[in-house]
C-alpha cells in the first residue's frame, strides 16, 4: 500500500511547546548600606531576545543571597532576613520590549534601621517557546 504524504496530517493528535530560543544574562549589585525608607535600583539586566509571538519563561538567581533559581512570572518579591529585625525586600520585574528581554531589580529597606546589602549578582535565563498555532 502506498501512502500519500500530502494527507498525513498528524502523528500525535496533540502537541506542546517547541524549544525555540534562549539567552543568559546578568547584572551586578554592589554591596552598600541602605537607609531607613530608602531603595536602590533599577539594576537592569537585559539581552537581545525578540518575542514576536512566543510563550516565555524567565528564571533568575540572586547569588550573594542564596543559590536557588526562581521562576519570574512577570514579578517576584522576596523578603530577606538580616541581622536582628533589619529586613530588606528584593523585587524583580521582567518584560519584553523593543526586541529585548529585561529584568529590573530594586531593593528596599523594610526595617526601622540602616541595613547592609551584600554584593548580589542577578543571573537570568530567558526562554522562548514556539506555540503551534
Amino acid at each position, binding site marked *: 500500500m*502506498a501512502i500519500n504524504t500530502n494527507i498525513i496530517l498528524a502523528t500525535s493528535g496533540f502537541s506542546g511547546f517547541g524549544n*525555540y530560543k534562549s539567552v543568559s544574562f546578568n547584572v551586578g549589585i554592589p554591596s552598600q548600606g541602605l537607609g531607613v525608607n530608602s531603595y536602590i535600583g533599577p539594576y537592569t539586566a537585559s539581552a537581545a531576545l525578540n*518575542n*514576536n509571538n512566543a510563550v516565555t519563561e524567565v*528564571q533568575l538567581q540572586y547569588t550573594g543571597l542564596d543559590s*536557588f533559581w*526562581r521562576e519570574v*512570572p512577570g514579578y517576584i518579591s*522576596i523578603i530577606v532576613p538580616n541581622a536582628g529585625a533589619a529586613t530588606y525586600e528584593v523585587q524583580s520585574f521582567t518584560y519584553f520590549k523593543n526586541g529585548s528581554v529585561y529584568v529590573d531589580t530594586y531593593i528596599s529597606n523594610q526595617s526601622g534601621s540602616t541595613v547592609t546589602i551584600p554584593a548580589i549578582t542577578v543571573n537570568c535565563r530567558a526562554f522562548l517557546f514556539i506555540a*503551534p498555532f
Partner: protein
Amino acid sequence: MAVDPNKIYLDLPKYGNDQIIGVFTNTLSSPAPTLSGFVTTVNDVRAHGFGDSAYFEGIFTTDGGTTWNTFGSQTPIFGAPGPTFQTLNVSATVDTSNVNVAIDNYYDLAHGAGYAYTVTYKIYLIAKNTMAKPITPIKTSNKLLYASEYNYQKIFMKGSVALIVSAGTTGTSTLITHNLGYVPKIRAYYYDLATSSTTVNRFYQEPQTQITATTLQFYSDQSGLRPGITYVIDYRIYLDT
C-alpha cells in the same frame, strides 16, 4: 509522492509532551483609568466545554503583535519622577466551564496619567496531569498538529504537592528531587483550596519556585499580615534535550 509504508519508522518518545487542547484569542479595549477610579478591569469569559479545568499559558500584546509578554508581566513606565510598575496586568484562571481572562489597567500615580490600551491575548489550554478522558481538543484552523521540525518540550517529571502556610509565617512544600544535574525549565499551577479545588491558577507573584540542579521546591511568604494559604500545586519538570 508515494511512500512505502514498510519503510516508515516511528521512534516513539520515551518522554511525553504537553498536550495543547485549545487556544483562545481576542482583542479588547482597556479604557484609561482615572485617579479616582484607580483601575479599570475588563473581563473576558470564554466557555471551553471540557467539563474540567486545564493548565494554561497566556501571552498578550499592546502594540499590535510586535512584542508579546507573558501573563503577569507589567512593563514599567519610566521617566521622572520615577518608574511606575503597576501598569497593565493581564491574568487568567481556568475553571471547569470557562477561561476567565482579566485585564487590569492601573492609574499611573507617579506621572499623574491614565492610559488606554488595545490588548490582544492568546491563551493556550494544556491537558492536566489528571484529566477526564477522552479529551476532544477545540477545533482550530491549524491542519498540522505536530510539526516535527520543532524540538518539543519533554516532560521528565510531573506530580502534585501541597503547600500549606499559616498566616504570619513562611513555609515550603515537600522537596521534589529530580537529580537532572542542571537547572531545568518547569511549569507549575495551583489550586487554592480556600476558594476552589478545581480552578487552575497560574503562578504570578505567589507562590514562588526554588529550583536547583537536583531539586524543586515551592515556597510562600505569608509573614506580616498575609492571610495564609492552602494550595495544591501541580508541577512539570522538563528535560533539556
